[in-house]
């Protein structure tokens, strides 16, 4: 076990995978200087500018080139800086990466990882704050990952790099400095894709969440006068751990989904609907969702705050369900 930040955990994972497999390389803007947040700091010294490639500001081609490179046998890790900018490469991700294997009848594979930092962070305003995970969970062919802890950022990134499918990998910008135990081990320490994590057991209510909201849910569970809350961190949104969620809600009888993304059309709707379809007769209360209002994230802290889901809001929703 080593104490690492979420940021260093990801960096360590990438470095280990690049040492292990010469086909792995990273490409994106400013990677040679360490990436916008420092996630690639020092890597160019070890791996050189060919494998830690500084690219032009060409999101469509960063992603499209990764597709072509993956189709002929390399394993690119794509950096998009902010998930918001990945929207400039939606054709390449959604129409090409996610479709190539299928359209060509299995002749080619697209083993790439797209790192798309998400979430609200230091008054970043409407074009640098979004959490767009539901968009990608909607697309057949894509795997969608959103780690909440340093250990998961290490173990999930390694699994994502080893995965033969295209993986949308969403790190939360607010989590970069978070410190935690990481089981650093070049061959072990992998966290399998598609498996949730039981963060805390409880008996009255299940909160299903991921990414930054895991900490918020845990803070809510620690507030006074809240019911006994079971907290599940999904870790992977597609595929998502239906078994873990359904098993938990079958026991607690109540389900609250919490996410930072806009509530309307969010992935919480998918979970809520599934729980409703599968467990209707066993629910003690209607399934509820707690996500951001359908407004762009604002710059002024007082306005930005209106988009933020707080522990108090989560606790309040939990109390009202029981």
């Amino acid at each position, binding site marked *: 076990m080593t104490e690492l930040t979420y940021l260093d955990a990801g960096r360590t994972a990438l470095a280990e995978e690049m040492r292990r497999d010469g086909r792995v390389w990273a490409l994106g803007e400013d990677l040679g200087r360490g990436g916008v947040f420092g996630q690639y700091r020092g890597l160019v010294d070890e791996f050189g500018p060919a494998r830690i490639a500084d690219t032009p500001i060409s999101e469509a081609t960063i992603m499209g080139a990764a597709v072509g490179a993956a189709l002929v046998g390399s394993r690119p890790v794509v950096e998009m800086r902010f998930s918001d900018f990945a929207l400039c490469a939606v054709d390449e991700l959604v*129409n090409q990466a996610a479709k190539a294997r299928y359209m060509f009848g299995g002749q080619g594979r697209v083993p790439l990882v797209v790192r798309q930092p998400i979430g609200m962070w230091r008054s970043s305003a409407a074009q640098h704050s979004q959490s767009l995970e539901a968009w990608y969970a909607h697309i057949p062919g894509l795997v969608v990952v959103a780690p909440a802890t340093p250990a998961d950022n290490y173990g999930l990134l390694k699994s994502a790099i080893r995965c033969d499918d295209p993986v949308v990998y969403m790190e939360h910008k607010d989590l970069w400095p978070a410190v935690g135990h990481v089981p650093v081990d070049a061959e072990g320490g992998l966290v399998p894709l598609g498996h949730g994590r039981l963060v805390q057991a409880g008996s009255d209510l299940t909160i299903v969440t991921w990414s930054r909201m895991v900490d918020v849910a845990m803070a809510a569970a620690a507030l006074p006068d809240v019911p006994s809350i079971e907290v599940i961190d999904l870790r992977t949104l597609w595929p998502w751990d239906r078994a873990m969620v359904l098993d938990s809600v079958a026991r607690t009888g109540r389900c609250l989904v919490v996410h930072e993304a806009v509530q309307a059309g969010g992935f919480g709707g998918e979970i809520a609907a599934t729980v409703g379809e599968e467990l209707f007769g066993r629910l003690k209360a209607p399934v509820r969702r707690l996500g951001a209002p359908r407004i762009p994230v604002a710059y002024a802290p007082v306005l930005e705050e209106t988009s933020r889901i707080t522990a108090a809001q989560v606790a309040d929703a939990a109390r009202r369900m029981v």
Partner: protein
Amino acid sequence: MPASPADRPGQPRVNAATATIAKANADRANIDRSRVLGHYRTMARIRAFEEAADQALKDGHIKGAVHLSIGQEGVASGVCVNLDRGDFITSNHRGHGHTLAKGADMTAMMAELFARATGYCQGKGGSMHIADFQVGMLGANGVVGAGIPIAVGAAHAMKLAGDRRIVACFFGDGAINRGPFLEGLNWAKVFDLPVLFVCEDNGFAATTRTRAVTAGPGPGARAESLGVPCTPVDGNDVVAVDAVTADLVARVRGGGGPQFLHATTYRLRGHTAADAATYRPAAEVEERWGDDPIRRCRDLLALHGLSAAELDQVRADAVAEAAAAVADGLAAPHPDPSYAWTDVQDVDMAPAGGGR
């Protein structure tokens, strides 16, 4: 099957184009007869395949869109003859010619158009998504311009791996107005990648004349503004395309970085097989039939002593091969519905596999 004017030997259409062509052919004192005959065969096979597909569409055997490259065969043949089997190509929506010229199998192609299990993509792709990774054909693409970054990425991977294989990237003149063109050429030059960009300039972007919606002097100037040298060529002169490409491929393979081939041509049919192309005057199309690359090639070979019978036989063989592909395609099984769930992704825990 209606014979195209290319197959009416002895009735040369005398117009400005044919006169120039006759002179160009006459000026060629020496040709590599077997190489040119190879082009004639490749182009005849592409033509026969597409004429058969066109008929099959009319007969109701093909459901999806089919974009014919009739009239543009000179570019596909002239370029691909210079590529090794291991080299890669990416293509666009009009990709039958590129795919056949790269060495793909006509039967598996036709079966794909017929949506059969024996097709290249098991019936999941159709005409617009034919791929044959065995011969380095990385896929036709339904999104204009999308093959450009993919080609650049394949070349990037080759450079990273120290592999000497190169990539040829086919796209139309319409694609140069999309962002990926600018991004992709810039990228290829910045990283000095082994890519041959091939702009097949047929003058049209669907039903619009490309020049009406394109600022500036066009494809070559755009490439050169990014430091990618452009070589213009008459795309209907397969011998010229071949010669020019040989030189460009040598430069690309030798580490000289990306090159741009601007091949002017004309699509003699509509944008899709179902498009009557009434947006252009019949006289223009008629005139351009006089510049049919297959006919030009045939005339050249005739000038160098091949008999009409020999040349007719090449055409007849191609037609027979296409007819056999149609028959095989019609006899081939439809894909099992379970195929719909295969090759989506591996990481999927949903019990049904399809992840509802």
